[in-house]
């Protein structure tokens, strides 16, 4: 069984590369029983969206199309 610390590590990693199916299942099982880590996952998604929308970010809001 993964700890919250392990889960946070794998969740971070999943933002950079695909996890193995074993890892995915382990994370999913942990998330079923852990609200704190579910919030963590949602917040990681949010941080990514924020970074992409940050002026000049990769998915940047296009400020120069006038």
């Amino acid at each position: 069984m993964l700890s919250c610390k392990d889960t946070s590590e794998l969740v971070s990693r999943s933002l950079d590369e695909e996890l193995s199916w074993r890892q995915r299942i382990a994370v999913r099982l942990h998330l079923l029983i852990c609200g704190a880590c579910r919030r963590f996952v949602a917040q990681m998604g949010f941080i990514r969206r924020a970074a992409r929308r940050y002026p000049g970010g990769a998915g940047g809001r296009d400020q120069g199309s006038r």
Partner: protein
Amino acid sequence: MQKRSLEAGEIAEHRPALLRYARLHLRDAAAAEDAVQEALVAALQAADSFNGESALQTWLISILRRKLVDHMRRGRREMAAADAGLDTAEGEESGFINRLFESNGHWATPPAAWTNPDAALEQAEFYAAFEECVRGLPERTAEAFVLREIGGLEAGEICKELAISASNYWVLMHRARLRLRECLQKRWFASHT
């Protein structure tokens, strides 16, 4: 005549955005200015190769990114001995992670719920807080995070640029995300939810 010609003024308009971007990468304000200047000059010289398909800012950022990488590389060479110092700083970092979790791996303070976080994405003040939080990261951690999440580079490219192993990379990114989460919680969500 599909190509529209780029004018210097049009390019210069993006200077402030480029500077903010550069400042996230380089702590040294003068070096950031230099990199932006070099990028603007390079953009003007290469104006013909701008095909108008990508947004101008995206194109400028891609030029700036190369200049920033050059600067970071130069900076590292000049401070070859500083790597020892970095190691200590990053070593203290693992202390930070350990404080976030109990010895059994449970959250010491479980992440609190953020209500309607996406509303923050529409607010300029939020990005100021976000910027401060990114600047508060230890240097290497910030570099990796910015290249990945703001610059949009792939993990493999970043390992090459920063000359770090894949496992170093995972550790840096894990720390960056945990730290940013905590910082945003304090600086923004504690008072906005």
